[in-house]
């Protein structure tokens, strides 16, 4: 039976991961297999994990303000390595940056006012057809 696997990643020098943990647990509760990277990972490490774990989606969380550089780097490395994956992100992200991140390949960016349900609905909608059983 195909399980949908999601990597929740914390790139860069950002020690705040309560949100990433809550979302990881929430996704587990609705049937996703979630791999959590832990904090302070480099884009290279995150991409290596995404490849080895053969995940269907990568969700990046960043609260440090460095999201433009870090998210872009992850997206570029994934493409370079030939890993096709759904990208989404979240954190303290100014409105004006959301479009920029979407151009980097992030399908959706969640902000502190997003509910957990919105994130689950987003993934369910993306993967509904992929789950066979």
């Amino acid at each position, binding site marked *: 039976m195909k399980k949908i696997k999601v990597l929740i990643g914390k790139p860069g020098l950002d020690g705040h991961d309560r949100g990433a943990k809550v979302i990881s647990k929430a996704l587990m509760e609705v049937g996703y297999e979630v791999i959590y990277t832990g904090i302070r990972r480099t884009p290279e490490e995150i991409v*290596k994990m995404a490849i080895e774990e053969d995940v269907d989606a990568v969700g990046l969380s960043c609260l440090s303000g460095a999201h433009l550089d870090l998210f872009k780097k992850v997206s570029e490395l994934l493409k370079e390595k030939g890993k096709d994956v759904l990208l989404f992100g979240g954190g303290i992200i100014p409105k004006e940056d959301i479009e920029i991140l979407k151009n980097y390949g992030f399908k959706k960016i969640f902000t502190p006012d997003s509910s957990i349900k919105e994130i689950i609905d987003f993934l369910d909608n993306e993967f509904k057809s992929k789950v066979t059983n």
Partner: protein
Amino acid sequence: MNLNQKSLIDGILEGDRLIIGKAISLIENGEKEGFTLLKEIYPLKKDIFVLGITGPLGVGKSTFIDKIIEKLTDEFDKIGVLLCDPSSPISGGAFLGDRLRLKTKNENVFIRSMATRTFPYGISPSLPFIIDLFSASPYRNIIVETAGIGQGDVSIKNFSHLTLVLLSPLLGDEIQFLKGGLMEISDILIVTKGDYDIAEPFYKTLKNSISIFYNDLIPVYMISSSNGFGIDDVYNEIMKKRLDLFSSDKYLEREKIRRLETFKYLLKELYTKKMIEKIEKEGDFKEIEEGKINIYQKILDIIS
């Protein structure tokens, strides 16, 4: 063999990260393509070494692997790491949180997390097949971490060449060490969290019990993964036992067990599943639920 399969096999032989990642998924998801692939690479298998790491939840298995891996990568060119964590019995999902402890950036290490998919005994049901997959890849020195386990979860022994059992201080008295199960499958016993004062008395009790009940046949070590205490000693013991394994009949004996157990798992995983699906399709599940079928008669019909 089609072209797609040929490129999968080549990728596995070459150690292509992307392809191995995908191949594991095919097997994990029970897809026929995955087992056809295994069939093709079975003759291409080479000698492997599987180091099983087990113990209850929170004793520090992943953190220990983080320490030992730095030493193993000095010795071996490529290392495969398989990390099992439990699935949720409620949703079927999983929170796989082992690899966050592994800080290695070494490109020669391939790490994969595996949910137990509600299979008991602390291992993923496809673990034996993934080990076979690795044996055709360059990642032939493999570390397997079980999910946190209990006293009776001994399956890892069947698939490891060396089994390390990790225990944390205050885990019990000598009565626990008299019991069958976990103690009996350990080739090396390790007391973790040695930087705490409570570790030493526990270590002494364990060591004393093992010397009496097991004639000192199982080495016992105390370590601290946070300050590095005892890690070198455990590493040297692993290498000593590994050498002993390969320079005697022991390796062959362990391989015999692994091959047969892997086949039994195949039967359980594939044959039983097929059987269940067949019976479900025939509509018997509904009748069983409603008590209209004598399940004992049914099973006697099936096995006779």
